[in-house]
């Protein structure tokens, strides 16, 4: 069918267009309590095959890497089996001494990030794990580098993660040595500080040197203590004589993440300081008095 030059919008076309515009505006004005169930129902019905397709594609993409990793693990296991009795005894002693039990071996759900082609994608991510995998709302979402955000909506097989880039994100934070506490929030959308975090509410008399690693403090009970948030890169502003706000370079950018770990909500009381790589954020001292 070739395009005819005489084709133009009829009255019916205009009415359909205006109807769609009205419905779009209505969708935009829906409160979250109505909006989320609608979006969730769509993800679990119409979009479910597409999300499954995307999930399978992501799995296929990483299958080679996983194969190499599994091969390496198998080789390591074969080597470790040689010393199995000694390892088992030593492991039992250490576990008993440290009281770690099985905590280190579980307590999270791995998931792939299903990125979408929208400018707001880094603010809220879709991940390929949901209620069936044990994900619960308000669970912390991390990558090997640090905190990504928290789960806001849970569907059967997918979840929505509100990332630290979202303007509504807040996390109680501290310096590595616990000497400085504050609230970490997105820096905002102006100037060169886009996609940075800021550490708010630091007492004026406490200086936080550049390079100080910032972690979650565990206060508030949402995020476990010890998850890397980023590194202090400078002072963002100060309220004369009261408090300072520091710029923090995030440990990880949401759009750069392909796989995440969703921590079980039961772990929010724990300390994960030792669970993250030492090089995830540059080491730095905590703050000190002026």
């Amino acid at each position, binding site marked *: 069918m070739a395009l005819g030059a005489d084709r*133009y919008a009829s009255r019916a076309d205009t009415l359909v267009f205006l109807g769609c515009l009205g419905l*779009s505006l209505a969708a935009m004005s829906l409160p979250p309590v109505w909006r989320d169930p609608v979006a969730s129902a769509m993800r679990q019905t119409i979009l479910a095959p597409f999300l499954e397709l995307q999930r399978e*594609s992501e799995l296929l993409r990483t299958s080679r890497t996983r194969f190499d990793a599994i091969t390496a693990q198998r080789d390591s296991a074969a080597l470790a089996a040689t010393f199995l009795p000694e390892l088992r005894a030593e492991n039992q002693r250490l576990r008993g001494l440290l009281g770690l039990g099985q905590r280190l071996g579980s307590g999270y759900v791995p998931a792939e990030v299903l990125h979408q082609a*929208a400018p707001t994608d880094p603010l809220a991510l879709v991940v390929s794990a949901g209620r069936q995998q044990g994900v619960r709302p308000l669970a912390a979402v991390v990558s090997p580098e640090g905190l990504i955000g928290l789960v806001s909506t849970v569907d059967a097989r997918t979840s929505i993660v509100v990332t630290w880039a979202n303007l509504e994100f807040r996390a109680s934070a501290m310096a590595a040595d616990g000497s400085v506490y504050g609230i970490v929030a997105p820096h905002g959308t102006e100037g060169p500080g886009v996609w940075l975090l800021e550490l708010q509410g630091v007492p004026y008399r406490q200086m936080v040197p550049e390079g100080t690693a910032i972690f979650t403090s565990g206060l508030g009970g949402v995020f476990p203590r010890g998850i890397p948030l980023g590194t202090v890169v400078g002072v963002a502003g100060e309220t004369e004589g009261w408090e300072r706000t520091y710029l923090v370079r995030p440990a990880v950018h949401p759009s750069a993440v392909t796989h995440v770990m969703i921590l079980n909500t039961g772990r929010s009381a724990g300390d994960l300081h030792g669970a993250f790589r030492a090089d995830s954020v540059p080491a730095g001292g905590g703050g000190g008095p002026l």
Partner: protein
Amino acid sequence: MRRSDKYRFYLVLAFLVALEFTVRSRLGDERAAPDFLLLALLIYTIRTQPGKAAAAGFVVGLMRDALTPASFGAGALAHTLVGYLSAWGKAVFFAENLFVNACLFFGGTWVRNLVIALASGKLRGGQLGWELLVWSPLQGLTTAVTGVVVLWVFRRWVHVRVREA
């Protein structure tokens, strides 16, 4: 147009939708990779009436909104506008050739991102500037190049004239 040609046209659209959910994540930076779903919509609008194009845009936008809840409704609005304007513009103003179609894909992508960014109210200042001046043009460019390739490869199936400008 034979009935089999119609099915082939929708087969091309389905192929683009499948690419969106399989190949796109392997094409580099998410912000600059081509948007196959929008491309399918724009190719559909080339052949259809503005009303149908607006309705298709609304459906595509709503689906996308369900996947990016940070801007729920803004996607539906943006895709409805782009779908309608594309079909209307093609009928009233635009000639049929490869370069014009490429411009349509580029402009459609950029306008879509502009409307989402403004309607959602989530991007401001520097973020908005980077989105509209860097990432959206890049995504528009990759989408336009992909669209031209698709139109050229499937020219007999989509029945769009692709003579050179």
